[in-house]
């Protein structure tokens, strides 16, 4: 059977499954819509959290990022997993005991202030919208690459599917589809990884294959081989980092703390029955995430070796003799070749081959390659390789059967859809619960609130789809925003709200606003206004959320000490959330 037929079958089956789950798990109350009724098993919640958390970028791009920057990519591996330790130890159990519906709920009640709640709503909306646009785009891209439909049609199909289970099922529908989506995506990720690990090292476990000897009988360790190949091509050794230590440090902190402060992750821990479930569920989530996150570095290294070998290493290879997948991914626009020295051979080396993303002209060059209108760079490198290749093209590079290729499509869609749905729920609950019910129209009934929640979810999907079809040019560079803002706004305020009885409304609001303003200004300045400027203390915009967080803590402390302590009943609330007994179920009152 052809790849395309397989893809239609597998993607079709998974979509039918998601819709089936949506119909089975319709939400009948606001509690079901916001927190799945509060009765999700901790292991199921762990799986759902893993799918919620791992986006199209984790599934498609992570291995490629590692592949191209080697040791420097450790910041992402540690940064996007270490946050779960913070969640389990510092936030999740207490927020579960608090037992409300949303993150702004906690901020609003703990700091006895509508202003604090509204600041939190603004942060939640901003963080979630930044994220969700990229997810819908990811859905479109997977559709266009594997099913040969237009990207925009792909986005619309994705919208319809998410619409179905998010609007109908709310958190309940989302939770159980996410469980299914986790299974699909992890299976799709592991199958090629295992096959490639066996081919290269003879070891079926990719995590171990990375540290094993090559299976070619040379007795050379895979990583040594890769270091050697990289050096030959004039690149930095794979296992040695280039980033400065202080920058690695700050980026890792910002990603960890940002993870722990992301509303769509936090809210997942409102759905389990007990405080102790919230603790173990964070552990379960991290296991499920770690399976993918410890496989990604192996895939990255394997992919790089395969790539270098395929293009003939240092000598290069004649374009005509390059493997078929090089040409098919050139057709897809993820590989491009510019014959700078006009010898008909692909030379892969350090540095960027061309300025920017490839712009293909309609002409073909004299060797049959797609001609580019980009300016060449000074580097000897002639090959442009999109990082997504390391996952998308892997099955072909390793000559795996067609159904494995189809599986990758289903996995990428599962990763994108599950994250999109989680984010849409945060957006809809921030609007219907925090903005309408708790601020603007406190008198509406639960039924009306549920209607508003569905309308808000539908509106959010439409907006996300719009951004997916017309992606704002800055989307790629604002991912740093989501983490930076979550780290600089939510994390300190929630942490202080639990661990300090003295922290008051004035301190929290001042802290959130100053952390937010500092981080936004820094990112906007270095990402958009003055791209050439030297970073402050050598900290890149990706890591500045860490400094924003420290500023938040500092300002909150000083301001709270200069203003009166919170009322008695709030101090009582803080003491109460520290003790597991009496958690009961999440409630609206």
């Amino acid at each position, binding site marked *: 059977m052809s790849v395309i037929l397989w893809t239609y079958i597998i993607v079709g089956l998974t979509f039918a499954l998601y819709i089936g789950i949506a119909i089975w798990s319709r939400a009948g109350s606001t509690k079901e819509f916001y927190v799945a009724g509060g009765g999700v098993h901790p292991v199921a919640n762990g799986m759902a959290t893993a799918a919620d958390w791992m986006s199209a970028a984790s599934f498609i791009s992570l291995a490629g990022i*590692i592949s191209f920057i080697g*040791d420097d*990519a*450790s910041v992402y*591996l*540690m940064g996007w*997993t*270490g946050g*779960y*330790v913070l969640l*389990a*130890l*510092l936030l999740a*159990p207490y927020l579960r005991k608090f037992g409300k519906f949303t993150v702004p709920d906690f901020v609003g009640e703990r700091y006895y202030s509508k202003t604090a709640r509204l600041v939190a709503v603004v942060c939640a909306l901003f963080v979630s919208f930044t994220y969700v646009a990229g997810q819908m785009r990811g859905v479109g891209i997977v559709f266009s690459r594997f099913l040969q439909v237009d990207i925009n049609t792909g986005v619309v199909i994705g919208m319809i599917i998410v619409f179905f289970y998010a609007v109908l099922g709310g958190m309940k529908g989302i939770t159980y589809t996410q469980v299914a989506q986790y299974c699909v995506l992890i299976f799709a990720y592991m199958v090629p990884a295992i096959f490639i690990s066996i081919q290269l090292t003879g070891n079926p476990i990719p*995590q171990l294959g*990375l*540290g*094993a*000897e090559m299976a070619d009988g040379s007795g050379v*360790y*895979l*990583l*040594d081989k890769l270091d050697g190949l990289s050096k030959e091509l004039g690149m930095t050794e794979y*296992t*040695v*980092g280039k980033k400065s*230590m202080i920058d*690695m*440090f700050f980026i*890792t902190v910002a990603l960890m703390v940002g993870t722990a402060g992301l509303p769509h992750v936090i809210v997942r821990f409102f759905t389990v029955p*007990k*405080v*102790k479930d919230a*603790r*173990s569920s*964070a*552990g379960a989530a*991290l*296991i499920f995430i*770690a399976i993918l*996150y*410890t496989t990604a*570095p192996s895939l990255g290294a394997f992919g790089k070796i395969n790539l270098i070998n395929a293009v003939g290493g240092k000598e290069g290879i004649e374009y005509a003799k390059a493997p078929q997948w090089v040409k098919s991914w050139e057709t897809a626009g993820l590989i491009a070749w510019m014959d700078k020295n006009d010898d008909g051979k692909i030379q892969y080396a350090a540095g960027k081959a061309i300025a920017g993303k490839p712009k293909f002209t309609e002409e073909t060059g004299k060797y049959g390659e797609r001609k580019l209108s980009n300016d060449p760079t000074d580097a000897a490198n002639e090959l442009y390789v999109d990082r997504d290749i390391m996952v998308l093209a892997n099955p072909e590079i390793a000559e795996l059967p067609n159904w494995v290729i189809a599986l990758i499509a289903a996995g990428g869609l599962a990763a994108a859809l599950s994250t999109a749905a989680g984010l849409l729920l945060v957006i809809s609950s921030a609007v219907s619960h925090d903005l309408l019910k708790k601020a603007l129209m406190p008198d509406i009934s639960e039924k009306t609130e549920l209607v508003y929640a569905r309308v808000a979810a539908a509106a959010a999907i439409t907006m996300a789809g719009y951004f997916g079809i017309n992606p704002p040019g800055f989307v790629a560079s604002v991912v740093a925003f989501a983490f930076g803002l979550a780290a600089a706004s939510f994390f300190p305020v929630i942490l202080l709200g639990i661990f300090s009885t003295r922290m008051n409304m004035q301190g929290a609001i001042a802290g959130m606003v100053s952390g937010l303003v500092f981080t936004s200004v820094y990112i906007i300045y270095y990402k958009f206004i003055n791209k050439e400027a030297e970073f402050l203390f050598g900290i890149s915009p990706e890591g500045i959320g860490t400094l924003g967080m420290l500023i938040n803590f500092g300002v909150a402390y000083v301001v709270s000490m200069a203003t009166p302590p919170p009322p008695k009943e709030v101090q009582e609330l803080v*003491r109460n959330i*520290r*003790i*597991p*007994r*009496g*958690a009961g179920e999440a409630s609206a009152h």
Partner: protein
Amino acid sequence: MDKMEQYWKKNIQYVLGLLVVWFIVSYGFGILLVDQLNAIRIGGFKLGFWFAQQGAVYVFVVLIFIYVRLMNNLDKEFDVDEK
């Protein structure tokens, strides 16, 4: 000291202890001491590289489950566990 204060103090001790390990394996081994540790090899892995790309993540998982265990026992000891 009141019983709940003792419970809370114990909890804070556990959390701090575990976070020290959390910090050492990731920021310590994976970033600050990575060059020194890379001199040590286990199979094909340089140790610092391994901690940064795999080892730290495994330790994170273990830390969470140690905490779950410690707290479940502590909850029972102070009679604040959920029925």
